[in-house]
């Protein structure tokens, strides 16, 4: 028994020595550093939208570095921010960066580092028998008109004008929106506020708003199902759900005047147009560029700039560095768009400001 214990403790100390910190060796395949993270158990909480991406990526990370386990609870952005503020989690996640008030509650504007981890783009899915995927064309005006309740029927002249050759029925439009507070709603209403003065002065933008028309369904899945069950319905759904469930989605007219069917590539293209995004200037809706998907937004992750526990802090920044570089590829299975390189660079610069006991925890070179 004693021998086993000794063997165990020796083994453990060898292990600890082996993973005792970050090394700066360069990984030839990616150009990035080979990071051997220290053993740690990390917990995060927040947004539901990036949860499938985080789960997939953190799983791969754990397979690679079994000493790091990450537990992410998709409890909603608001709850994630609150848990970070109360320091019950190591990182929080939100579809909208923390506001000035929230930052103040968490210890001031410089207490928290916020990085963008992935991109979401919103599709307008519809249920019109006989109108196939991408066939329905919507412009900023018609989208705002439908969701303001000004366009009530599918054969409205405003819709017909953009859709010559498509037989739109004389049928009432059933608008479906999210009933739960969500980042998807935020991105969509941010877009509507950007393209429509009526919307901006009317319902406005937010995770929950006072919808002029339509019915609410809880979660992307319920919105998607309600649309599928209701002929004549239209609603906004996260692209991933549209692709996974094979729904028909509209072509959207972007700022350059092109009709694009939202896609991961379109989201990345839109994000590229905004190289100077910061947590306080984060809106990337209605992007210029011919391929840009117009209703796009980043999803954010926050951690404290000064990490109390050095080992945990090191493991955390190593994990997040991996998430925004190599980890990006694991979003494609679940239809998450990759970050543009400018954003990765911003994120790395932000992560390098994270310290513990005065010394920086991430020692990788900043990508050029």
């Amino acid at each position, binding site marked *: 028994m004693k021998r086993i214990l000794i063997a165990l403790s020796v083994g453990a100390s060898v292990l600890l020595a082996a993973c005792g910190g970050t090394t700066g060796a360069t990984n030839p395949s990616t150009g990035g550093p080979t990071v051997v993270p220290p053993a740690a158990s990390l917990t995060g909480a927040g947004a539901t939208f990036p949860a499938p991406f985080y789960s997939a990526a953190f799983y791969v990370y754990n397979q690679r570095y079994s000493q790091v386990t990450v537990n992410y609870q998709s409890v909603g952005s*608001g709850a994630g*921010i609150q848990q970070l503020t109360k320091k019950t989690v190591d990182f929080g996640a939100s579809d909208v960066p923390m506001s000035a008030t929230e930052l103040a509650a968490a210890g001031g504007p410089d207490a928290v580092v916020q990085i963008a981890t992935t991109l979401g783009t919103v599709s307008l899915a519809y249920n019109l028998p006989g109108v196939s995927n991408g066939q329905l064309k919507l412009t900023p005006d018609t989208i705002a008109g439908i969701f303001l309740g000004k366009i009530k029927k599918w054969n409205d002249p405003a819709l017909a004008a953009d859709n010559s050759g498509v037989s739109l029925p004389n049928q009432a439009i059933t608008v479906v929106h999210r009933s*739960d507070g969500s980042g998807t709603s935020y991105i969509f209403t941010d877009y509507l506020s950007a393209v429509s003065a009526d919307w901006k002065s009317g319902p*406005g933008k*937010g995770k*929950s708003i*006072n919808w002029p028309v339509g*019915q609410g369904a*809880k979660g992307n899945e319920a919105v998607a*199902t309600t649309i599928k069950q209701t002929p004549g319905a239209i609603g906004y759904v996260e692209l991933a759900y549209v692709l996974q469930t094979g729904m028909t989605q509209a072509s959207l007219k972007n700022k350059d005047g092109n009709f694009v069917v939202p896609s991961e590539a379109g989201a990345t293209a839109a994000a590229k147009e905004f190289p100077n995004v910061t947590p306080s200037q984060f809106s990337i809706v209605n992007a210029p560029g011919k391929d840009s998907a117009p209703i796009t937004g980043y999803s954010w992750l926050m951690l404290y700039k000064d990490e109390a526990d050095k080992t945990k802090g090191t493991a955390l920044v190593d994990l997040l560095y991996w998430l925004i570089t190599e980890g990006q590829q694991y979003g494609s299975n679940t239809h998450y768009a990759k970050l543009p390189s400018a954003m990765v660079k911003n994120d790395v610069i932000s992560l390098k400001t994270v310290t513990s006991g005065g010394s920086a925890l991430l020692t990788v070179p900043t990508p050029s």
Partner: protein
Amino acid sequence: MSRGTATERVVPTPLVVSSRQRRLVAGDRVFEGLAVGAAIVILLIAAVFVLALFVPALPAITKFGFGFLTSSTWDPVRLQFGALPAIYGTLLTSAIGLLIAFPIGIGAALFLAEEARLGLLRGPLSFAVELLAGIPSVVIGLWAFFILTPLMRDNVDPFLSHTLGFLPFFQGSASGYGFLTAGVVLAIMVLPILIALSRDVIRAVPRSLREASLALGATKAETVWSVVLPYARVGITGAVLLALGRALGETIAVTMVIGNRPQITASLYAQGYTLPSVIANEFTEAVGNLYQGALFELGLILVLITIIVNVAARILVWRFTGSAPVRV
């Protein structure tokens, strides 16, 4: 002389209390203390519970005051909150649910309790009722979301419009999501409670009363109508109250079918909202004291409505029968 009781009985105030009696008295005191303590704990829990809702709700209570109860606006962007549509939706859907469930529930309970020829059927039927009671509400919600809403939209609602369309309740376009569907779901959810409790209450009606009625020449229906049901009325009211409590607080299944739209309409086809649904939908992403306070205040209102409904029903029963309803 043994420590008999005869002498002690004639002594008005016994100066010597036996050790056994003292133990008994002490035991009574301990028991009394425990019972009073338990009762106080219950009261404390209730008080703490209301307080725990009241304190976080304070920002909204001070900001909106009484207007919170009368305003129909629910606008998280401009931080304007009013609870009226959610209160309306909660009361309306519960009322629809009970209106549908009551006759079916009492009928089924009478059948199970009174029909002697049932024999083999009674066991499986009772089992089915208990099975229905055991289905989690989220499963009923899923079923309602996928099966009931299209059924309501394509069959039930058009039928009602066709036959009862002259009433304002059955006018307007039916999407399948709305007050009526939510009411039907609630009816399904409260049925097992109603049936099981009413059945037991009806069974508890003394056999001698039934026999007396039958002996006087009353038919079975007359016996049930004028002897069994009046006798069981108090207990049935208790069952209805319990069912109402469940209907008022039901969250997830209602959220899935009501359409989640804060509005007040006469049409039962229209989408609505209920107090628990608003809380469930918006709590995770509610940021700021005022917004969260408004949601807490909705919770407080829900608790108060439950209390008011209970008290009102109790007073009604007292008026009619002069006795309190059976607590179930």
